[in-house]
């Protein structure tokens, strides 16, 4: 047999980072080629904006759709980003069922790189959905009444929260057998969380039992922080508390997802 050159015992951390960036590049490329994803990312926020602004606007904000747009847009940003985290679980699930992860595992790359690459690539997706929501909102008449710096901070806060939430989605994607299963399961988990908040309507208008849930829901806290950053109001309290939630979610779900990933792949 011809001599085999010296082989590395394991991937170096730097090599692992490079693997991760390659797989991030892959995720981002896939956004372009996957039309359903592009439509979901761009059309969904646009549809939500139009529907909620003009269907509910008149009823909720005493006839002023503009006032309602100012109220709901920060909430819709939260909704859009949280729903977009679903994509993380879906893509992981597809990669496993299609055998793509098997190919990665036969390559001498860092074992955690496919998972890290998927999550990093999804940050780009979240950013796209945030930009589209704000951009289309501005076309409809939304205005940032604080300052550009706060608005950027608002976007970063959203991304930080999404970075935590996508681990919940990843865990579901790794545990459930089929992509359809991911969708069903995630909607059952996400719908009450997203709509059981002050994202679309003021908490004070709800019955007491619901208020109890809405007040502790991290979506409410994040929405409050976003409102503060985009249109004025208290920022520090809700921002700190929603970030504590994000850290909590991350600390619980990232290790669980990493464990499920090690078992499944």
């Amino acid at each position, binding site marked *: *047999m*011809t*001599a*085999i050159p*010296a*082989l*590395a*015992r*394991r*991937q170096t951390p730097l*090599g692992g980072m*490079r*693997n991760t960036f*390659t*797989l991030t*590049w*892959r995720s981002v*490329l*896939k956004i372009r*080629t*996957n039309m359903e994803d592009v439509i979901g990312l761009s059309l969904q926020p646009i549809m939500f904006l139009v529907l909620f602004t003009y269907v509910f606007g008149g009823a909720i904000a005493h006839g002023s759709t503009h006032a309602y747009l100012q109220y709901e847009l920060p909430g819709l940003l939260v909704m859009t980003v949280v729903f977009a985290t679903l994509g993380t679980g879906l893509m992981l699930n597809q990669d496993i069922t*299609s*055998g*793509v992860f*098997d*190919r*990665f*595992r*036969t*390559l*001498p*790359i860092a074992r955690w*790189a496919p998972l890290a690459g998927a999550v990093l690539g999804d940050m780009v997706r979240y950013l796209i959905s945030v930009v589209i929501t704000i951009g289309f909102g501005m076309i409809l008449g939304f205005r940032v009444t604080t300052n550009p710096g706060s608005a950027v901070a608002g976007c970063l806060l959203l991304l930080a929260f999404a970075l935590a939430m996508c681990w919940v989605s990843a865990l579901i994607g790794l545990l459930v*057998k089929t992509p359809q299963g991911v969708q069903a399961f995630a909607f059952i988990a996400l719908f009450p969380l997203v709509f059981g908040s002050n994202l679309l309507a003021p908490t004070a208008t709800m019955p007491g039992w619901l208020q109890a849930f809405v007040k502790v829901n991290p979506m409410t806290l994040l929405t409050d922080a976003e409102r503060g950053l985009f249109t004025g109001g208290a920022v520090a309290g809700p921002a700190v508390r929603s970030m504590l939630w994000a850290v909590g979610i991350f600390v619980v779900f990232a290790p669980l997802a990493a464990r499920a990933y*090690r*078992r*499944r792949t």
Partner: protein
Amino acid sequence: MRYDATSEYAIEATRLVKRFGKTTALDGVDLVARPGRVLGVLGPNGAGKTTAVRILATLLRPDGGRASVCGYDVLRDAHQVRQLIGLTGQYAAVDEGLSGTNNLIMIGRLLGMPRPDARARAAELLARFDLTDAAARPAKTYSGGMRRRLDLAASLVGRPRVLYLDEPTTGLDPRSRTDVWGMVRGLVADGVTVLLTTQYLDEADQLAHDIVVIDHGKVVATGTPDELKAKTGGQVLQVSPADPARMAEVTALMADLIRAEVVTDAESGVATAPVGDAALLPHVFRELDDRGIELAEFTLRKASLDEVFFALTGHHAEEEEEGRRAEENGRRELEGSNP
């Protein structure tokens, strides 16, 4: 670094055991592949071929036994093994959302190639596998044969020394099948060791230098194609009475004289039996003549691998399809829960 220069084999597996719940997929499998040769792992569906490949490709942890690639242990030295192998599975694992080019560039980059090198290697492989025209299209638009070729190309990006081909031609049309065979021969000419699993006997006969026959997780025979054919008598007597009504008589007579299991095919009216000793043939012929049985056919020929397989396992290679499907599904589900 651990490099076992004395290792004579490119692949070496000893008493591999793998269980999925109550199913024993591998029950003490031994196999070796000589460097630069094709080892055919032959067996019906559900025999354990894919499980063996997945263990050798570091995707699955065996419950018992050990395996090494070029002297590197698949468990302890998995990272080194991964630098030596390529895998093309039964289900083409290409990224459907990426173009053919980007699929290959991605692998090249993951293997640490600089971007221009990865791009050049991708173009080279796409040309070699006749995919240049489709290079820019997403893989989800590819036909089954194209996907399989892209998958094969993806497993070759890193110039592996050992290549696993898990049923590379299952579900392909005859032309694509011949193409794949040609590619395998080309790789072997380049010095690559190939482990090929197949349920097609002619494929093993065509490509493999050595064959391991697996059935129900056990090795039932090993050898070169010719050795295997010789093992079961080597030659086959084929007799067909002119009057189909006398078939039973012919069968009984053959069984009595040759002392081997006689297989009758009622449809074609042919009785076949492996013949170890050609000297018996005149007896058979005389006896048939004495009883006044007119013959439509009386021939002696070399055993086909299918007959070898039947003689070894008691069933034909391509039956049990249904049972296999169920087992395969069970296996896939169970594999989900593996470390």
